[in-house]
Structure formats: C-alpha cells, structure tokens
C-alpha cells in the first residue's frame, strides 16, 4: 500500500500533497531550501514508486510563487519523469497556476510546456 506524501509549506520549502489514491499531486509556495537535494529527493522517489506500483493517471498541480535555480532544476527533473511516464503510455497532466500579474512564473510554465507532449494547462488566477 503506497502512502501519501504530505509536507507542510514553510517560508523556503514547498507545500507538498501527493495523494496515492487519487493520483493528484499538489506543489505550492516558494522553494529555496538550504539543501535542495534533501528536499526534492523524496518527491522524486515517491513519483517513481507511483509509476511502478499504481500506474494510474497522475495530475500535478503547481502553484508557485518563487523558485531558486536549483529548485528549477529539480522541478525540471520531475517534469522529465512525467514525460517519460507519458511516453510509456501513462496518463499525465500538469496544471500550472500563476497570478495574473506574475509574468515570471507564467513564462517559466510556458517554457516547460514547450518540451512536453502531455496536457499542460497554464492557468491565470
């Protein structure tokens, strides 16, 4: 039985709510942790385990305020894993939320969208 992954948002780390039952994954907030690898590795491990054990549809909701460069790198790694899952037949969807006046986050989403084949919705709030 795969457990959910829930991490409370802090000032410099993302809120995480990965639900193994529904396949809905939420990332919210800002990310500039002291040790980016330490923060993101459990997230990536969880997603890989989900692909192996659940093999269901995965929906990733991303509501980000700010990412430092190392967090961008890890988020890109997560998107790559989703793209590979999609290529192997898995269903994937990303909902990328940005504040109406936040061009920076919108553009970041648009650039990621350019490189994926699965459904990638950019949503202004």
């Amino acid at each position, binding site marked *: 039985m795969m457990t959910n992954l829930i991490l409370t948002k802090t000032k*410099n780390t993302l809120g995480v709510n990965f639900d193994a039952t529904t396949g809905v994954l939420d990332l919210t907030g800002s990310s500039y942790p002291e040790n980016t690898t330490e923060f993101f590795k459990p997230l990536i491990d969880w997603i890989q385990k989900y692909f192996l054990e659940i093999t269901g549809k995965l929906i990733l909701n991303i509501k980000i305020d*700010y990412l430092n460069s190392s967090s961008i790198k890890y988020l890109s790694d997560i998107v790559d894993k989703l793209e590979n899952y999609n290529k192997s037949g898995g269903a994937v969807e990303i909902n990328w939320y940005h504040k109406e006046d936040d061009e920076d986050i919108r553009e970041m989403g648009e650039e990621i969208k350019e*490189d994926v084949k699965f459904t990638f919705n950019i949503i202004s709030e």
Partner: protein
Amino acid sequence: MMDLVMDIRNDAGAQTFSCTHEGVCDNKFLVEFTDFLSSSFEQVMTTQEFKVVLFCSNELLQNIGFYSAEKEYSGEAASGKGKFRLSGDSSSITMTSENRVTKEQLERIILSLDLYNSLGPDELKALYKQKLKDASPTDSKGGGIGFIEIIRKSKSQIVYSSRSDESNLFLTLKIQLIRTKNDD
C-alpha cells in the same frame, strides 16, 4: 536577526533606495532577506521588478553562502561570508555582491560569465534548456543555471571584477536592471 533596512531618500523629487548586508549568507539570512524584500519592495519597485530582483539577489546571496572562500563555522556547518548591496533610482536597480574566492574559482566563474554574457536571448534559452537536461555539475548547487537565469531575467550582462589584497582574492558581481517608464 540581521540589520536589514531599506534606506529610501527623496532628493529634489527623485527617489533613491539602498540596503546592504555584510557577513554570513546562510539560509537563515536568505529567509530574512526574502521576508524583508517581500514586505518592503512596494515602496521602491513594481511587482515585476521585485520578482527579478528577488531571483537575482537570492542567487547572489546563495553563491556567497555556498562558494565564498571565507567561511563561518557553526558546528559542522560552514556558511560563506561576503557583502551584498541592493540599490536603485528612477533609471535602474543594481545588485552587487563581493566575496573571497580561490584562484581556481575565479578562473572558472570568469570563463562561464564570458560565455554567458556573449550569448543572445535565444542562445541563452537553448543553453538553459540543455543544462536542465544535463546532470548537475558535482561542484554546483544550482545545476549550472543560476548565472544564465540571472542574465535572462534581468536582460543584462553580469559585470564582474576582481581585486586582491596581501593574501586574498575577491570577486565582485554586478547586475543592473534597467527600469522602463511603463513599469512605473
């Protein structure tokens, strides 16, 4: 607690602002700086400028914290020390960092910056995407995209200079964000 203060002046109707930090740039300071900038930026810059300034400033501060050759030790943890200054007027916003570096670090950073500064927007975007796909360099905390993203977001080159005293080498990095009237 750090002594972060936004010094805002109005001389003959022209606003200038600045804040400086000298010392350890650990994650605790980064959180304080982010809080400080988030709560004070509206007095001196637009939301769009704030997003760029926050990104560039935090990258500079993290570079000091991770790579400065001058460290402060707390138990087994070591944090880099250096100087940082954010300032601005009606025409531009400038972020400057200075920290001690080794000769090898200086040579490597200059090599990277000379390359990145020579590239146009499309080339930078292509390099950025390539580096996102690559494995992170073993000596990098940011996957090697920090400087590239600073140039892309600020739309300006990273100006560097170095100086030395009797025994130390110092690297200064400067990022200047040109303000447009439309941002006001």
